[in-house]
């Protein structure tokens, strides 16, 4: 396996008695869209803050591509952390010039970055006149300066309207397609489900699980059936064979759990009919990522 882009090793951060981060370790594989998932206050921003050297860890370490981090490492990472931080009295253009100067780059790609987030027409407006969504998009433009291979987005769709959220999602997917590694912290599961390939779930500063999305957040299809002849229904369903993992009775309904995409309603219906049972209820239910998430974080 190739060297992880970011490798976090037993990172701990304490604020007095409070442990904000408790020996968290995970690797971000190259080329992945890595979702850092967790409820508010679970330690997502703390983790990214330490990695970006604005917070000092109590113990533990981290490496970028196997190397100890330096300021120069950060010059090649596009990061949006927590809130868009810009000089209020300067225009978008002037603000990005400062970011470019710090990164040791020219002004050439500033306009292109602003165009990517649809802000080029407002490039000379002061940051203080921007709406929340525009500020967020400017922060993302700043991340794109110098076309870095690693992007870190902390709640990138914060404050955006539905259209803006869709735009950012498309942008992230496009960047991922270009082969960039993206680390994205979010408490919006929907967001993670739609774009991430890998995920780490944090709760109260502890890492609950980490890995490929398909492994961690196994999604299941649930087929819910019912019939007047509920007693025979169960035995008939059991004869369906090894297609489903579990059979659960919920009230007057039975739930069959299939792995994602494997449920075939017609087949279930046909099977029951062939065995003399007429279904009066047949429904495919997607198990939401949300319930899976609650399942993970509530244990």
């Amino acid at each position, binding site marked *: 396996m190739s060297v992880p882009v970011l490798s976090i090793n037993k990172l701990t951060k304490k604020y007095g008695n409070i442990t904000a981060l408790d020996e968290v370790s995970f690797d971000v594989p190259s080329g992945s869209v890595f979702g850092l998932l967790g409820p508010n206050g679970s330690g997502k921003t703390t983790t990214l*803050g330490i990695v*970006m*050297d*604005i*917070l*000092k860890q109590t113990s533990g370490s981290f490496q970028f591509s196997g190397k100890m981090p*330096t*300021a*120069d490492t*950060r*010059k*090649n990472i596009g*990061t949006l*952390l927590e*809130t868009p*931080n*810009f*000089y*209020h*009295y*300067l*225009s978008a253009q*002037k603000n990005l*010039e*400062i*970011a470019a*100067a*710090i*990164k*040791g780059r020219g002004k050439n790609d500033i306009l292109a970055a602003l165009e990517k987030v649809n802000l080029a027409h407002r490039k000379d407006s002061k940051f203080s006149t921007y709406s929340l969504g525009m500020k967020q998009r400017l922060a993302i433009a*700043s991340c794109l300066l110098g076309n870095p291979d690693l992007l870190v987005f902390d709640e990138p769709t914060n404050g955006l309207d539905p259209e803006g959220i869709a735009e950012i999602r498309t942008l992230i997917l496009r960047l991922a397609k270009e082969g960039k590694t993206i680390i994205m912290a979010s408490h919006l599961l929907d967001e993670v489900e739609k774009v991430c390939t890998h995920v780490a779930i944090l709760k109260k500063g502890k890492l609950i699980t980490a890995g490929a999305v398909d492994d961690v957040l196994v999604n299941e299809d649930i087929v819910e059936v019912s019939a007047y002849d509920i007693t025979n229904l169960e035995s008939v369903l059991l004869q369906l064979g090894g297609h489903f993992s579990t059979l659960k009775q919920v009230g007057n309904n039975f739930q069959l759990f299939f792995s994602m995409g494997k449920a075939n309603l017609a087949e279930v219906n046909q099977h029951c009919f062939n065995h003399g049972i007429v279904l009066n209820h047949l429904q495919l239910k997607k198990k939401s990522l949300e319930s899976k998430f609650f399942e993970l974080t509530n244990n």
Partner: protein
Amino acid sequence: MVKLLHIEWLKVKNYKAFWVFLGLYVLGLFSVNYIAYQFQIEVKKNVPLDLFPYSFPKVYQTIAWISSLLLYFPGMLMILIISNEYTFKTHRQNIIDGSSRREFITGKILMGLMLSLITTLFVTLNAWGFGAAVSGKFSLEGIEFIGYSFVQSTCYLFFAMILAVLLRKSGLAITIFFMYGLIFEQLIGGFVDNKILNKHYFFYYMPLEVTDILVPMPFGGNMFFKDAPETYVLLFLSLLYISIFCFFAVRKFEKEDL
């Protein structure tokens, strides 16, 4: 160094409030000297007393002292440009974008030096202007006071810097800067000297006062500060304080959560 100054320059270049404030300060430097100069003329009409001599060689000391009364203004500017970073959280963003913590705070130290140089430049220009106008000649005698003035303004500015770095909020930092410089240093110094030591000693060694004695008032300075330490001691202590302010500003910024 040049890169750090360039980045700081980008931050203030289009900052209108900064330039308006700086412009008013420069205007104030001239005005306050002009007032003292006029006052001196009025005094001379009645009594042959040189309170504020504006002719060479004394003009350097006069202008350095008069100008030092306004040092709180570049100090406020210094506080403003640092606390702005905390307010906008751009101190974090600069680090995220790839500055090292040391580079960031060094940029601020360089800005402090620049402000001090600007102050000194206008003090010098005022001294030459008034000196030449009043004396009808030009002289460099007594110009060491320009050097002392530079040390003094640097000390004030770096004191302002450490307050801004420690307190983060401009309002609080500016209030404490004024309160300490105008009241509490005198109060603490006076208390220790009069109530504990029973002689003028401790007060002279306090961070702002030590540079104030370096540039004493042009009238009666010898009388007020007759037991003051030697100039080289004052200079050494001033530089020591400047170093201490820088050291702790760097240390605080490097070690702690931003």
